[in-house]
Every structure is written in C-alpha cells, then in structure tokens.
C-alpha cells in the first residue's frame, strides 16, 4: 500500500455534560447486568430498584442543572448539530425521568408478585428510557430513529416478559410487527426528506425549506405523509391505533403505564420537533392533515371506549383520545399550541402512571373486567378516592390538571380560529367522561353480595399513587408554574 499521510482525526465537538442524563441511565443498565451476571444467587429486587431510582434521581439533578444553563445561556446543540440542548429536550428528559422513577417503584412490588426477572426488566427499562431521551433531543432524523428503536426494542421485550400469560406474548408480537412496520414508514419518510432537502439534519431542513421555493413539492409532501404515519403509529392516533387496545391489555400493567406515558411523549416530541420546528415554513401543507387526524382520533377514542368492558381496554382507548387532544395542540402550529401540548403531555404522564399503578395492583394481572372494581369504594376507600381523582382528571374535571390541560389545548385551537375542532374536542370530552364515570360508578355503586377481594398493596405502589394524585391536584389548583415551564420549553432549532 502506498504511504498515507496520517492526518489527525478531528471529531465533532461533544458536550458531554448534556449527554450525561442518558449516559447515567445506560451506565446503570450495564451495572445491573454486570451485577446480576456476577452474583452467585438471584439478584435481589430491592438492589435493582434502588439502582434504577438512584440513576433516575442523579439524572434528574443533572437535567435541572442543564435547564438552568439553557435558561441563562440560551439553547445550543452538540455533536455536529445532531443533538439539541434546548428547553424542549430537557423538558422531555425530566418527564421521562419522572416516568422512569414511577415505573421502577411500581415494578418493585409487581415483578415479585408476577414472577418476572427484575434485573432484566430494569436493564431494559433504563435502556428504553435512554432511547426516549435521545429521541426527544435529536436534531437529526437518523439520531431520532436510533432513539426510537432503542425505546421500542426495550418495550417489545418488556411486554413479552409476562411468561405466565399467553396474551402478553401475543401483544408483544403484535406490537413488534406493527412497530417494525411503522419504523419502515418513518425510515422511508426520512429517506424522502433527505431526497427533497439534501439533509437529515432538522436545522438544515428548516433553513433549506425557508429559503427555497419548490417548483414541484410532491417529494416533500410524500415525505411528510410518511413521517406523519410512522409517528402516528407510535402515539396511537386513529386510524393507526389498532394495536393499542390489544397491546395495552396484554402487557404487564407497569409496562402499559410506561408505554402510554413515555412512548407517547417521545413520539409527540419527535412530531413537534419535525413538524412544528423543522417544517414550520410548510405549515399550510401539514396542519390540515394533522387536524383531520386529531378529529378522527378524538371521535374514535371517545366512542370506542364506551363499548369496552375491560378496564385496560377502556384506558387504551382513553389514551387514544388523549393523543387526539395533543394533536389539536400540534395542528395549531403556534408557540401557544406547542406549550399546550407540552403541558398536556406532562400532566397526562402523571395521570396515566397513577391510573395504571392502581390497575396493576388489583390482584393478579390478568383480565380486568369492570366487575373486579365493584365495591372498591367500600373495601379500600382511600385508594378508591385516589383512583377516582385520577379518572376524573383524565375526563377533564375542574380542579384537576386534566381540566387545565384540555382548556389550554382548546384555547390554542380557538386562537387559531379552528372552531370546529375546538367544538368537537368539547363534545368528545363529554362523551369520554361517560367512560371514566362508568369505572367510578362500578367502584361505589355495588350490591352487597359482590365482594371484591383486593390484596394489600405494596408500599411502593401506594407511594406512586399518592404522588401522582398529589401532583394532579397541585397542577390543577395552581397550574401557573407548570404553564410557565411548558412555555419555556418550546423547541428551538439552533446550530451548535
């Protein structure tokens, strides 16, 4: 071989400080695997839970530091502008870490009860959380895709870990096949975006689309459509929601909570970053499609929820309708709308995690017919009140965070003069409330002979439910701090 001149390799500058939150999570995952491989006996569940909690808390402290940095010095990006460090990415990092801590605590009692291997579950949970953070922070479509896959692959396995239940495996296969399918859509969308704009970097795409007028923008339209379909699968927006009821029902309840909160939040983070931030100059092209999606999702979520008899299926359709509300905020394509979407996702995370905490603790995690909840108001009054508050918050009753969230979303639509969608949102909120009230009625109105035998709850479940109910009421009564937090977290694409 000819002599080659050895040039020093100069890589892109890396802001390691900004990468620390997800590196802590990955480090904890590796530590758990190493300890569980080296330990002579079965690794104890408390050790694993404590490791995950420590990782989540340390990560959260780092994220708080990053938030203060961004508020002081303004947003930036790192690694050749592929990784955004703005209020948006840190907002979602915090949301994901809160969900991680709650899921880790919930699984503490749950994994032993259901005989699931704790170290593997937590290692996957941590990897999936790191993937979600990467997905929410990525300023580059390929990096975003890697984050999405890391998030999803962890989820596929976590759903299937419920050995005892055939349904868990079935739902894992369903989610895997449809997830792979939607990934293909997304990837094709990324390829066409690259074809239309010459880059996968969102900053470059935004600048290019702002500066260039296409003579023929069919390629870009196809790219937008494919990206939208791929992400709609992930956030379970109708008509791409068909996997949701089966998968939510089959998955172990803490995983359902994780999927409903974090997979949806990360999906919306990607949606907002791509469409609101990068495709901003073409909002005339994509807002009508998103508003139709929102309308269909609202109606399907509200109407189909009424027809269900299994509580987990009801909550699956309720999560579909929540996706509809967030889509209303997305289609507004304004800073106000995006802040409303962020507020909605943050409060929704707390509501849905608390709800699935209760569902997961209702005896053995098999089917959840409504009859199982009969008499809960008599046998366990305090927790029944907690569950009621969480369900009413999802319905959007005043004094809970759900009301403020729905109010802001509808206000964003009204300010955008989209009165039809705002009206539809209010009607479906009423229809949806019927479903939540059905569960509440089942808990309180019971006949004497029906005795619900609910085993005593693990302390960690109680902590999660109390914390989630507390936050839901707090954000409902004094929402201002969270509204300001969301307003500071609107995505900003900026070169590093």
């Amino acid at each position, binding site marked *: 071989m000819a002599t080659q001149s050895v040039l020093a*390799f100069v890589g892109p500058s890396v802001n390691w400080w900004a990468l620390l939150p997800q590196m802590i999570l990955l480090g904890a995952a590796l530590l758990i695997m190493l300890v569980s*491989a080296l330990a002579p006996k079965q690794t104890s569940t408390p050790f694993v839970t404590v490791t995950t909690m420590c990782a989540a808390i340390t990560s959260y402290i780092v994220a708080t530091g990053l938030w203060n940095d961004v508020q002081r010095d303004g947003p930036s990006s790192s690694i050749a502008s592929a990784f955004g460090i703005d209020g948006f990415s840190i907002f979602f990092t915090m949301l994901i870490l809160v969900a991680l801590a709650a899921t880790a605590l919930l699984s503490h009692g749950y994994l032993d009860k259901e005989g699931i291997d704790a170290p593997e579950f937590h290692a996957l949970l941590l990897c999936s959380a790191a993937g979600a953070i990467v997905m929410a922070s990525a300023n580059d479509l390929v990096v975003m895709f890697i984050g999405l896959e890391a998030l999803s692959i962890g989820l596929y396995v976590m759903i299937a870990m419920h050995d005892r239940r055939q349904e868990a495996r079935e739902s894992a296969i369903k989610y895997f096949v449809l997830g792979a399918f939607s990934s293909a859509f997304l990837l094709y969308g990324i390829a066409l975006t690259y074809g239309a704009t010459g880059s996968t970097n969102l900053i470059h795409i935004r600048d290019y689309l702002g500066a260039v007028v296409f003579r*023929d923008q069919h390629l870009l339209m196809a790219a937008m459509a494919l990206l939208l379909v791929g992400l709609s699968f992930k956030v379970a927006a109708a008509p791409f929601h068909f996997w949701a009821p089966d998968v939510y029902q089959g998955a172990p309840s803490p995983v359902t909570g994780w999927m409903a909160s974090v997979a949806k939040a990360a999906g919306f983070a990607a949606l907002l970053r791509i469409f609101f931030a990068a495709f901003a100059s073409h909002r005339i092209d994509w807002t009508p499609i998103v508003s139709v999606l929102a309308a269909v999702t609202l109606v399907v979520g509200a109407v189909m929820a009424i027809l269900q008899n299994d509580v987990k299926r009801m909550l699956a359709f309720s999560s579909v309708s929540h996706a509809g509300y967030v889509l209303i905020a997305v289609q507004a394509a304004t800073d106000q709308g995006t802040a409303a979407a962020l507020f909605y996702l943050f409060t929704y995370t707390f509501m849905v995690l608390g709800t699935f905490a209760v569902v997961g603790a209702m005896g053995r995690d098999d089917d959840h017919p409504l009859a199982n909840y009969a008499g809960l108001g008599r046998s366990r009054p305090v927790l029944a009140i907690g569950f009621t508050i969480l369900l009413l918050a999802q319905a959007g009753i005043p004094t809970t965070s759900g009301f403020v969230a729905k109010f802001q979303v509808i206000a964003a639509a009204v300010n955008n003069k989209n009165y039809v969608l705002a009206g539809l949102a209010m009607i479906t909120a009423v229809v949806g409330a019927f479903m939540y009230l059905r569960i509440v009625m089942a808990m309180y109105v019971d006949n004497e002979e029906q005795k619900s035998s609910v085993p005593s709850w693990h302390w960690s479940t109680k902590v999660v439910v109390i914390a989630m109910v507390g936050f839901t009421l707090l954000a409902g009564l004094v929402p201002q701090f969270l509204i300001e937090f969301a307003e500071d977290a609107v995505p900003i694409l900026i070169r590093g």
Partner: protein
Amino acid sequence: MSELLRSYLTVGIFGVAAIAMAGAMLTIARILRPQRPTPQKLIAYESGVDPVGGDWAQSQIRYYVFAVLFVLFDVEAVFIFPWATRLEVYGTFGLVEMAIFIFILVLGLFYAWRKGVLRWV
C-alpha cells in the same frame, strides 16, 4: 412529469414487459400441452419422496440463540474492520470509543453465558 418520475418510466416498462413475457409463455404452454390429470400429480413435490406427516414442524430453538449471537458479532466485526484500517488516524479517541463498544457487547455475551443461554441442552 418530472425528470425523476420519467426515469422510473423505464422501470415501469421493464416491469410490464416482464409480466407480459411470463404471462405469454405460461398461456402458450397451457394451450399446447396435453392435459391428463392424475391424483399423483397433485402431491406436493418432495424431491421424489412421498411427503409424510403434517406441514407444521417444530425446529430446535437452540440454533436460534446461536444465530442471534452470530449476527451480533458479525455486526461487531463490520464496525471493527474500517476502524482498524484507520487506527492511527483516530488515535486514543478511537481506541477508547472502540473499547467501550466492545466492552458493552462482551458484557452482553458474558451475561448470556452466566444465565446459561449458551448451554447446549
């Protein structure tokens, strides 16, 4: 029609020609050949042996584990080869990066080994 789509026209014409050709050959064969159906002709072809049993066969799952591990280290090799050819250029940074990459993969193998996945039952 844009230039991009026009270049796909060739692919379209090629596809239509392929379907027409295959269709024509099968149709001609159908018209020309003698037709004497017998029950034996409907048996699934098994290289001359009569097929026995159902069509639902189970294969050993243990091969699958090794296939997954093979793919894992195959991909690792794909990453190591280009890195190795440019080792001096990447310097310490590249060495540390590759060490982390290999450490994570070896940890996975170690975990699988300790959990008894590699045991040939």
